[in-house]
């Protein structure tokens, strides 16, 4: 079931001459999915999230959350949880007061039990009476996460949950999110520019750059897709590899051939892999291994961002 949908969504903050912050965004996120929304600073990630939360209205296109326009009904907002980059916590409250306040606003029953459970979950049970102003950024983020799920939301929106945290705190927040995604049937919309975090947590991602979605697929498909036009062949030695490169270049159809030790890399340009392998075998070469290179998400991301920048 699709729970979040954006159809040709555009958002502008100025007049017609101002370029839109979001330009023709289309998304469909299924229930239970952990969806990563990747992009550099200023790409429009937070604006997208604000539109999906009903805080901003689209200039063009439509947005549906649970099939309804977000921000119109309190009942829809009650099913959403949100953690902004600033954690949304009041420094002058204690951890318990903050959770209790939000639990009351959302009409949570058995507040005491729920708050105890959440403070335990985020590892802040012993700081329940401490003022939030005394917390580190990491602790605030963890408490913010507890606050965001105090009412057991069906969709959780997270905006850069590990931004500004040291590596240890980043790991802790990531583990909490992993546990949350694994143990509760919750849909997560994760805004981030942390590639590692997105790769570890998300089942599907969209890459946003300058207000437009450049790619939207599973991490595996994106990584494979980026290397789908090349293969790597390992031969029994460097001399064999050099000979293989000559054979492949002689085919003319494969102009992009590279040699690195006993490895030969070639763009396949529409040829089938068995056809290339057969050509090499016919040339009397000893093939040890044939692989299709899988790029890291980082490579895919930077390629897309660079391509867009060049365009």
């Amino acid at each position, binding site marked *: 079931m699709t729970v979040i949908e954006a159809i040709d969504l555009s958002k502008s903050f100025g007049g017609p001459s101002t370029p839109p912050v979001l330009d023709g965004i289309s998304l469909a996120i299924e229930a239970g999915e952990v969806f990563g929304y990747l992009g550099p600073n200023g790409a429009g990630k937070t604006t997208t999230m604000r539109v999906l939360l009903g805080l901003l209205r689209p200039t063009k296109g439509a947005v549906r959350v649970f099939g309804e326009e977000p921000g119109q009904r309190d009942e829809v907002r009650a099913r959403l949880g949100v953690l902004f980059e600033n954690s949304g916590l009041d420094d002058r409250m204690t951890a318990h*007061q903050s959770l209790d306040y939000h639990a009351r606003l959302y009409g949570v029953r058995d507040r005491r039990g729920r708050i105890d459970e959440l403070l335990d979950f985020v590892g802040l049970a012993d700081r329940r009476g401490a003022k939030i102003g005394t917390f580190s950024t990491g602790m605030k983020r963890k408490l913010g996460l507890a606050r965001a799920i105090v009412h057991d939301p069906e969709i959780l929106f997270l905006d850069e949950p590990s931004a500004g945290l040291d590596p240890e705190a980043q790991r802790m927040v990531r583990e909490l999110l992993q546990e949350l995604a694994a143990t509760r049937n919750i849909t997560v919309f994760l805004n981030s520019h942390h590639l590692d975090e997105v790769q570890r947590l998300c089942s599907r991602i969209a890459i946003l750059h300058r207000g437009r979605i450049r790619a939207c697929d599973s991490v595996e498909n994106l990584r494979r897709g980026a290397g789908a036009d090349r293969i790597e062949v390992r031969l029994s030695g460097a001399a064999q590899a050099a000979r293989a490169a000559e054979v492949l270049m002689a085919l003319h159809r494969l102009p992009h051939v590279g040699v690195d030790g006993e490895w030969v890399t070639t763009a396949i340009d529409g040829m089938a892999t068995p056809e290339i392998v057969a050509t090499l075998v016919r040339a009397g070469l000893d093939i040890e291994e044939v692989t299709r290179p899988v790029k890291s998400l980082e490579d895919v991301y930077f390629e897309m961002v660079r391509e867009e920048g060049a365009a």
Partner: protein
Amino acid sequence: MRAFDQVLTIAHKELREIVTNRGLLFSGVFFAGWFSLMTGMGVTGEDISRGAELDNSLFYMGALIGLFVGYIYSGQTYLREKQTGIVETLLCSPVSLRSIWIGKALGVALPSWLLSLLSAALIVLVVNYRSTETIMPGATVLLHMLLVVPAFIVAAVALMGFSQLMLGMRENMVVNMLTIMVLFGALAATRVVVEEAQLVTWTAVTGLLSASLGLLLLTSLLGRFLSRERIVRTIS
């Protein structure tokens, strides 16, 4: 019923923050105490005319001190939450914009009114301390303090909250400066006003009550221009 509970929850939170924030509480108490002390000391007429002067002082200062304290506290309630971005999280909750706004206004107005009552009591004490006869405020002033002043403070705080939520940070700075100039101007004009005889009449009290209710109505109508988008877009 749910909306009412949410308004009370927000009001309770704001009230608790004001009461537990020593610096904020002290600044309100200090200004209220200072102005009432100065006002009480300023009632210098003959005993026979002191009653009228006292009534005038309470009528004028009761509302003004409440307004001044409300101004100090509302900055900490509306504007601070906007500056820190806390309000954005609140806007995502299943609470209507009106409930958020009213809840905060009530949370600010209650301590402001209580301090205004304490100021009135202090003015009465100071005037009596310096007088040979016991001078007590009249019924019109008591009604004014118990009914008109809270309505006036709620309306004024809601209006200040509206402007703080609606406007950007730069515009808010300008509005704040203008507000503080007007407030100090009004406080400085105390002497001229309180020396006027028979300022406090049933007509004056009813007039101010009507003005306060009118202000509440105006604020309520202005609320239609407030939107989540407007608040979010003026956060930074």
